[in-house]
């Protein structure tokens, strides 16, 4: 069964619909079990308030209504079968679905849920793209890598890309934001915005106290915590382990 420009959720519902119809047509049955890896889709059948999936729900709901209304003992069971379970029969179906090819010509019209999702993806992409080359994010903006060695891109879901990492406490969050934007109470910043103020590091080794110096060389901070790569978690360890780094003297 191939369709185009719909979401997996709708595809799932569609295939349940086909299954239910063919069962109803062919033989007298009293019990149907549906084994699927997204229980979410099947739950939508019984809730009437999801406007976006209405089109897919109506035919299934009609059929199930018909099936259940025919005999008082008829019942339908939905079993959730996550891919993790590796239930052999479902794995077989999964394999087949993945290997088959969709239609090549894409239709011009989209389903409602698909266009909703597509638009969000496009906007997110344009944000990430403009953010990458943006000057307004700060000239000294530091890009980090996540645990999978990929440069972190901005997102808005679940608190964004950085906040879940650095939001452990207010102090860490504040100091880390300072580090990333370069707007931190360090010599480098004083030099740029307040040219008359002193710029050297309290350790006395360098003339201009930079972020790099604090992370890598400065003897005032715990050297064991020096970040070895540009992964965000190792930097967070440093900031957490050195509570006096990147803050004002009196803070």
């Amino acid at each position, binding site marked *: 069964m191939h369709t185009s420009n719909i979401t997996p959720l709708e595809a799932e519902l569609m295939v349940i619909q086909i299954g239910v119809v063919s069962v109803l047509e062919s033989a007298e049955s009293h019990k149907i079990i549906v084994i699927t890896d997204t229980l979410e889709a099947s739950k939508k059948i019984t809730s009437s308030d999801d406007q976006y999936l209405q089109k897919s729900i109506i035919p299934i709901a009609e059929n199930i209504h018909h099936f259940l209304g025919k005999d008082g003992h008829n019942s339908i069971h939905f079993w959730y079968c996550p891919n993790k379970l590796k239930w052999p029969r479902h794995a077989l179906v999964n394999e087949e679905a993945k290997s088959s090819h969709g239609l090549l010509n894409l239709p011009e019209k989209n389903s409602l849920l698909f266009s909703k999702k597509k638009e969000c993806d496009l906007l997110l992409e344009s944000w990430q793209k403009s953010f990458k080359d943006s000057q307004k994010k700060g000239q000294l903006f530091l890009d980090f890598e996540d645990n999978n060695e990929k440069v972190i891109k901005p997102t808005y879901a679940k608190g*964004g890309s950085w906040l879940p990492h650095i939001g452990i406490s207010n102090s860490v969050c504040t100091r880390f934001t300072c580090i990333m934007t370069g707007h931190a109470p360090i010599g480098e910043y004083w030099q740029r915005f307040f040219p008359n103020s002193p710029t050297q590091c309290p350790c006395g080794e360098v003339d201009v106290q930079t972020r790099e110096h604090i992370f890598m060389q400065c003897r005032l901070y715990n050297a064991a915590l020096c970040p070895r790569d540009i992964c965000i978690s190792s930097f967070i360890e440093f900031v957490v382990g050195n509570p006096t780094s990147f803050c004002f003297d009196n803070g």
Partner: protein
Amino acid sequence: MNWVKKKNLPTIEAIYHEGQPCNNLKALWNALHSSYNSADNRAISTRFLDGINQCNDIDWPPFTGQEFKDAIAKCSNASSPGPDHVTWRHLNPLILDKMCLNKVVDIANACITVGYWPDQFKESMSVIIPKPNKTSYNTPKAFRPIVLLNTMGKLIEKVISNRLQFHLSANGFLNPNQLGGIRQWSTIDAGIYLMHLIWAGWMKECHTSVIAFDIAQFFPSLNHDFLSLCLAKAGLNANILKFFINYHSNRSMTYTWNNFTSQKFTTSVGIGQGSAFSPILSAIYLTPIIKTFKKRIKNLKKEIHADILSFVDDGLLISQEKSYDLSSVFLFSSYNMILKIFTDVGLIMEHNKSEIFHFTRAQNPPNPSLDLMSIGGPVLHPKPIWRYLGFFFNRKLNFHQHVHHYATKCISTLNAMKMLGNSLRGLLPMQKRLLYRTCIVPIVLYGFQLWFFKGAPTVKNIAELKKMQHRAALWITGAFRMSPTEGIEAIAGLMPINLHLKKLNGRHHLRYATIPPSHAINSLLDIHQNKNQIQHKFTLASLTDKQKLKLRSPIKDISERLNKIKDKFDPFHSIFHPGLRLVDHFSDRIIFHSPDSSENEDLFIYSSKLNLAFEETQKSSKGVAIISDGSIKTSGSATAIAHIWRDNKVTN
């Protein structure tokens, strides 16, 4: 903490009633009662109801438990209880219990079949709440009575009103030009409707003049006899009509002022604000009024072009002409007409709250006033800014004042929120972000659909919003004041405001694919044109191609968007009919199974259960198993496969 305590009413000013200050409690109760029941014994005339079409009968299957479960799921535990002090929190476990639920369903069904509403549910308590932003609180009119009812009765009311909402939209009783009080009809819809008319009018070189009028004490002065006649016209059957007549009779009311409570008063007019019926019943009350108005306008010898829009008790008369003289005449005569109809049904228009406004793009445009002296009103002078439904309109529709008002409001909220946390202590960054997204974003972006569309002047507005979001991002992250906006926005996980607006706007457009066919917005769109509806003068279809190309309006964007959508929607399909839905009847025969947790042990147990269930269906000849899976390709196409297992044989 002072601010969580119950707020006391202002005590400094004495309430004046009929020129006399109320010095004791008895006088106060009498003053309150007589002003909230001022519509008592007001004469009404029902003769124009004969001209309204009788709607199709509504069938009314017995209530099912699921409807009650759905209704209670939407109730807030924090809402105030009625005279019996039972809150939703107490009622919730009772509804979840099957035996209790069946009893409740039986009571509700009996109420309808017998046509009786128990006295226990009629008892109500009226809490007096001051209306916001009044200069003086010395008359009862500056306060709003909110009726608290017993929750049990309110639950049944909710279920009934849910059905009424569905059926009255489905059978077309409600008028498209009437918004508010009905599901899926929001203030934004009213705003967009008006915006399209104005922009399309400018295309045809017409300016737009509007009069906004207000009905005094709307809810407390609805007449019960008239309402019953309206309900009959709407197609409700005899049992339900009898129920509503009983519902309105012998009601008693006690008033509460701070900690003092009055004796019982009997009331014979009005629907309490606070009852679940008040939105839908008020909409039913207004329908014949608007229908009659439209009919009378049409039947006049001289043609009058005027349009009416009503949002509960805020009405709007619209006239679009090339000359101001003509539109003034039209507005005057339609104002006079609506005034007469309102007097007939026992409602009073508050003349001094009426406002006039002219929308135009011309340089140095005239701004004429309208004299309503001859029909007992004042002379209406247009103000520079017109506030309607929370939108601030100016004459050129650039919405600078609107955005400025909401952005300033939110910046001051943000300043107040700084009490809750700073860069050292207080709320965590994630919590601050949540607070911003839930309490500030929806307020500051209210009504953005009116000014954010293709070709509209948005630069200044977006700059204002950006400033606001910058402040919020600073608060969330605790960064320096001069930090770069885009950087800290990204760190705080907030999308830049212009992209966020685009996202919300797209969602909003898609919503219009699901609205009922009788919706006001549908009457302007060209694709889902409803054949039975009267065509508006400025629909998209009525414009020439050249004008369409030049037109800038939110409706144009919506129409372009919806042309790309495949799905056709039917919100009134019988599957969604409350009382006949799948869940209403068969919820115990549709069963979901899922593992208790994703621990390996639980998964193993679950897996063996699944095997057992599968084998069982294969052994018996009457069982069938469907195994399905869907996957999505990068090209955007989705594939789904199903295996149907019967008698250990598989078919695709």
